[in-house]
């Protein structure tokens, strides 16, 4: 029986075109209205190192890259082995491997079931013969995949034509020949793999973008007209995208000499009245921390996107982790209120970034959007209809407020929010600083003023808390197992909850989008609805669990599932934990009775 949901993974070296191949499949799928997710993984090498690309194509909504790879393409077993332990292959998978790679199959570390299909393929020979170059290996493969697995054939051909349209006619022709050769070869295995043939009703074309791109578009939508950044994986795509688009919308962009300068520049830009943003990763955020405190103290709205990656220092720069949480929440000298948001998928990167600007403008404080490599660099289909979001602009003080002697930049107010002017506004001049200051911005070191100003600055969070408490809840109203997680864990957790429910278990999950100010009431309400609590996070030191403990009376027997990054969270990992907790709670009940 054909399938409506297919997961393919391809492995090769830099020059093998693995990622190009994945991108073409993803685009063809998106064009045909499928739900698509494409995830890349690289070794640390800049060029030529091992790379892998996983593509999931589905006629149903999907939330993850797919746990089990069903079709595996291996150009080189050595490259495949470098990703060992990072993905699970289905027991009955189809493994298409390069015929001329003589590595004994018992050495490749893949123990599959009896139904698995190990199929040697002459990728290299076919490419040479049909296209005259081994470089066309990936295109040959696309032919095989489209014929044998139903990856949209006509659209792949269009994608190839589009890709090579700027090259010489001969190059396009050679590639199309390679593609045809792949199709012909694919006919021969079609019957053997019919259970993995993708069958679906084509629909309207879909948007296909990465979390970093979604953040960048979100920023433009929110009215961001100044971006300053310093390159760092895995955040650089934000800088790249905006280097093209920022001037097109009439804004400015600069690549600064370091992250200190990037942070300084956006504070300057925003002080000057223009919505400003930077994007970085953990090491960059560390460098920005002093000026994060400055923005907090001087009450300047800025947005910082932190795309988390694995490990401290250079760590695992190309892989994901959720270990900047504390840095984002508490990293500061002095008491420096800020807001921390956590997008949970690609589309959410758009929403969270727009919300970040709105909050920053309303509350005049820095807002950190805590994304991670897993959502920032994967590409995913989205529906344009949901991409509507209101935009809040800075409010110009009234003439009355600006009349002679009236204007106080840091006036105490009920909400803690004071009138804010910017250059160009006559009679709005003020001199601000990172020193403690009085209502009119004058430096002071008086304890009483400091106390009152701290109170004012923290008071602003109350408004944020009441207005932005967006949380996601999945599963049963009353559950035996309730999962707390954040950010990119949402996808696998949501899918695990849906699967558990399908099996008849009562399971639910709770995912906050606003991490700070802490959505206390929502968490407490949720905890009342679950019997056993499970925390899921990708941080070795369990930063999220410890954060929760500072605000909540977490049950003593809370089950914490935490591990290091470097491998994306999978549905089966979560499912396994759910099963375990269900078993344990059954035992506990027996003992009680």
């Amino acid at each position: 029986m054909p399938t409506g949901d297919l997961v393919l993974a391809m492995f090769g070296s830099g020059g093998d075109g693995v990622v190009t191949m994945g991108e073409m499949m993803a685009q063809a799928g998106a064009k045909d209205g499928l739900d698509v997710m494409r995830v890349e993984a690289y070794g640390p090498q800049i060029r030529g190192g091992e790379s892998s690309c996983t593509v999931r194509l589905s006629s149903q909504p999907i939330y993850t890259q797919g746990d089990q790879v069903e079709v595996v393409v291996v150009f080189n077993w050595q490259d495949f082995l470098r990703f060992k332990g990072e993905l699970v292959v289905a027991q009955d998978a189809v493994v298409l491997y390069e015929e001329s790679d003589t590595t004994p199959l018992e050495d490749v570390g893949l123990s599959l079931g009896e139904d698995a299909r190990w199929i040697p393929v002459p990728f290299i020979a076919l490419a040479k013969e049909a296209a005259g170059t081994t470089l066309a290996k990936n295109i040959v493969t696309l032919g095989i995949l489209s014929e044998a697995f139903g990856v949209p054939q006509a659209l792949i051909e269009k994608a190839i034509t589009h890709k090579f349209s700027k090259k010489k006619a001969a190059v396009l022709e050679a590639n199309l020949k390679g593609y045809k050769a792949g199709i012909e070869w694919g006919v021969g295995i079609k019957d053997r793999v019919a259970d993995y043939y993708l069958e679906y009703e084509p629909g309207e074309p879909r948007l296909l973008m990465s979390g970093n791109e979604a953040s960048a578009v979100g920023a433009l939508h929110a009215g961001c007209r100044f971006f300053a950044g310093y390159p760092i994986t895995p955040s650089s795509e934000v800088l790249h995208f905006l280097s093209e688009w920022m001037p097109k919308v009439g804004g400015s962009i600069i690549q600064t000499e370091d992250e200190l300068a990037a942070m300084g520049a956006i504070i300057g830009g925003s002080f000057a009245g223009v919505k400003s943003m930077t994007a970085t990763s953990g090491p960059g955020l560390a460098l920005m921390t002093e000026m994060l405190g400055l923005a907090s103290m001087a009450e300047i709205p800025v947005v910082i996107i932190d795309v988390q990656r694995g490990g401290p220092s250079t760590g695992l720069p190309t892989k994901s982790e959720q270990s900047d949480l504390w840095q984002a929440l508490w990293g500061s000298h002095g008491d420096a209120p800020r807001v921390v948001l956590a997008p949970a998928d690609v589309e959410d990167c758009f929403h969270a970034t727009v919300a970040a600007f709105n909050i920053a403008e309303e509350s005049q404080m820095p807002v950190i959007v805590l994304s991670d490599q897993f959502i920032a660099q994967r590409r995913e289909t989205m529906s344009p209809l949901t991409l509507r979001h209101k935009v809040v602009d800075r409010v110009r003080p009234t003439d009355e407020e600006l009349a002679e002697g009236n204007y106080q930049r840091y006036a105490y107010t009920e909400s803690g929010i004071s009138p804010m002017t910017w250059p160009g506004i006559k009679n709005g001049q003020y001199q601000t600083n990172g020193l403690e200051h009085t209502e009119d911005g004058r430096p002071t070191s008086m304890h009483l003023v400091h106390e009152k100003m701290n109170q004012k600055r923290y008071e602003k969070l109350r408004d944020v808390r009441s207005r932005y408490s967006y949380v996601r809840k999945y599963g049963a109203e009353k559950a035996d197992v309730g999962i707390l997680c954040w950010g990119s864990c949402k996808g696998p957790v949501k899918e695990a909850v849906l699967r558990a429910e399908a099996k008849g278990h009562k399971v639910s999950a709770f995912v906050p989008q606003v991490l700070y100010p802490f959505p206390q009431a929502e968490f407490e309400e949720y905890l009342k609805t679950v019997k056993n609590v499970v925390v899921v996070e990708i941080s070795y030191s369990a930063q999220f669990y410890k954060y929760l403990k500072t605000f909540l009376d977490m049950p003593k027997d809370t089950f914490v599932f935490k591990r290091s990054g470097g491998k994306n969270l999978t549905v089966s990992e979560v499912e396994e934990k759910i099963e375990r907790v269900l078993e344990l709670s059954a035992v506990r009940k027996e003992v009680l009775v």
Partner: protein
Amino acid sequence: MSAVEMIQLKPGDYKTDLKPVWCPGCGDYGVLNALYRSLAKLQIEPWNTVIMSGIGCSSRLPGYVDTYGFNSVHGRALTLATGVKSARPELTVITVGGDGDGMAIGGNHFIHSCRRNMDITYILMHNEIYGLTKGQVAPTTPTGDKTKSTFYGNPEAALDPCELAISTGATWVGRGFSGDMKTLVPLMTEAISHHGFSFLNVMSPCVTFRGDDQFKVMKEKLQNVPEDHDVTSRRAAIYYTREQGVITQGVLYNTQQPSLTDRILELREQTLGDKTPPTTDEIFQAFYPQF
């Protein structure tokens, strides 16, 4: 504002009601006064002007000028100024600060600000010491001098901020002395008027930590740049930065080079021009498969 309505702004109109915290006799008073006069001379609109600073005694200056002002964090003033100017190229942007702030902790930003040649004026108050933290060695302190942090005398070599500015791309470089208003005001006026990154190094004594006689010592070393000095020659300009035993004041270097401020505006003109900017929906179109 039409010319008829224009009110003549006087130096005093640029003052705020905040009293400077500086020690009596500090050189920074002279710099502040020169700034009031230069702003008045150029009739700079206070509401269209931003003065940025880092941290130090000298960095307190923005609080005393009734423009938009920001006394930010140590060493980073130029980064904020770069942001202001990138985001709002039409504003007048002036950065001020100390020699520790600009040459030590902020040295990297200084180099890159010179290189970018944005239309920013940077006024450095050069006192050869860290004033605010009470007298430690600065990158500009002469070798051998005793300071609070060099008990046995400064073991390091000093750098010359003007030399660094000229060699890294600043397009206007001058040196003045806070005890010589007659020279300083025109210099500062010229620096502010310059299109591109202008760097004015003002020798500004710290009477508290460099001794009461720093004014006298500096004044004795003072000489004017010769009238036949070719300000467009980088080599000639460098010559007047490092001479032993003298302080040459005047315009050392003055050229016109493309400024990043212009480039930003040009790019906007090329990509957007008179068109309406794309809507979010139009931007999203770029993410549909393009075949």
